[in-house]
């Protein structure tokens, strides 16, 4: 069972703003799913390799080279706030 305090902590880690009144509902929903996936604890996994890539593909190397993206203005246009060609954010420090 997940407590309201845990939900508040998780929401903070996930950077999702939550209202005091939402905490109970999220606690109930998350607890229900966690109870349901408990079933996995019964599986014997001693010595089993975890799957890293499902078709067994390994690292693929490429040259560390810059590729120019032509449509830069379209990216700048998406900034929620901007000054000239710079994205504007709230002060970081």
């Amino acid at each position, binding site marked *: 069972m997940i407590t309201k305090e845990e939900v508040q902590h998780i929401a903070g880690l996930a950077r999702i703003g939550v209202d005091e009144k939402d905490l109970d509902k999220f606690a109930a929903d998350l607890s*229900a799913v966690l109870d349901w996936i408990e079933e996995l604890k019964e599986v014997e996994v001693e010595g089993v390799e975890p*799957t890293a890539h499902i078709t067994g593909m390994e690292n693929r190397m490429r040259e560390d080279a810059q590729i120019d993206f032509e*449509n830069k203005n379209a990216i700048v246009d998406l*900034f929620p706030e901007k000054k000239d060609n710079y994205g504007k954010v709230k002060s970081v*420090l």
Partner: protein
Amino acid sequence: MIKDLHNKLINKEITAVALAEEYFAAIEKNDKDIFAYLTLTRDLALEQARMVDGKIARGEEIGILEGIPGVVKDNLCVAGVRTTAASKILDNYIAPYDATAVARLKEAGAVILGKANMDEFAMGSSTEHSAYGPTKNPVDLGRVPGGSSGGSAAAVAAGEAVWALGTDTGGSIRQPASFCGVVGLKPTYGRVSRYGAIAMASSLDQIGPITKTVEDAAIVLSVISGEDKMDSTSAQSPAKDYTKFLTGSVAGMKIGVVKGYADSLGEEAKASFEKVVEKYKELGAEIQEIELPNVKYSLPVYYIIMPCEVSSNLARFDGVKYGMRAVDHKNTVLDFEPENRTLIETYLDSRRYGLGAETKRRIMLGTYALSSGYYDAYYLRAQKVRTLIKRDFEKAFEEVDLILTPTTPSPAFKFGEKSADPIEMYLEDVFTITANIVGVPAISVPGPLVEVDGKLLPQGFQLSAKWFDEENLLRAAHTYEIN
């Protein structure tokens, strides 16, 4: 269907512009009720169609998909077009580039009519989680079209598109195809580049076609598949012309039926499935019972791996570089005091108001499972069980060529029937999820209709094949369809 339209185009019975206009007229007429489309791309479509007509007028040869109109799920980028993934947080997002699958369709001359509705960020099985309202099932407007690619499936079923692109993370192409009575194909993991797909769960996501026929699915797959340098997980096998493998015969093919699977079905769905098994027998396939002992853990494995990957992928939606930015400094409860409160509140409020409830649930679940002290118990254990499930499939495929199951436990359900309880909704994916867990290709094909409350509803069956064996998969599906 695509071949017929292609012949009409080259025989000058219809122009590509007139064909596109015909589909826009169908959308105009029906989509007020169905709501398959979030955005129409009329200018783009007509410009593409005019180019095709120019080629035909000049006597040039045209490709099979040239001038054929379709729809792209709204979590796939189309350059210069609004791409929301059905989320408020991307309400104003205009994609700066094309997804590779979209670029390949454009290159092949396919006409793009618009963007299809879906569950927000592809999380859901009914489109009820779209921030813009649900799509309705064209077969019965009181029922869901399935999800998350519900808009794509409904558009094809309603005659509002010839082909559609969807994405499938746990059944999101196949389940809506089953509910709407159309064909839905999830290719092998890596067969189609994921570049330009708004990522949900990166180790499970795959793009694929939804179409009226298996042959049409093969045509679209032939165009969108193949290696892409922009997606390092795309498979290094060249694209093939999959229509070449549609021989119309399953004689001698070995098809596995999973012991105990049909028992969980309702009576009507079970009868529909048994008819499919019978038909494959009559067509000359060898039916063999197989066991997949660890498959019962697929859903819990999925509901650990998927939310973990979701929590990581969706961290990018924070109101900084694009999408909705909200700050209201109200009500938010925090158990720590940040040094830079206004910046943190930008993240908190943008995500609070921009994301829907199901999306938040999954992000939080993943954040919890990945948080300090829980990684081994959840994510790592799930990835180990995933290996066991994969071994089950490797073993089964030593004995059989294909595995046959229902696509869904029952036909389309009614609005509101499962939306109150998240786990009820999650159980929808019980048959489809394993193909994503183990990465094999799988297709849903319309089977015999099922009667519910005096109404006949579509019910799909699902075939899955060995990794990268789309050839046999499509061949068997096509053979059923034409007989």
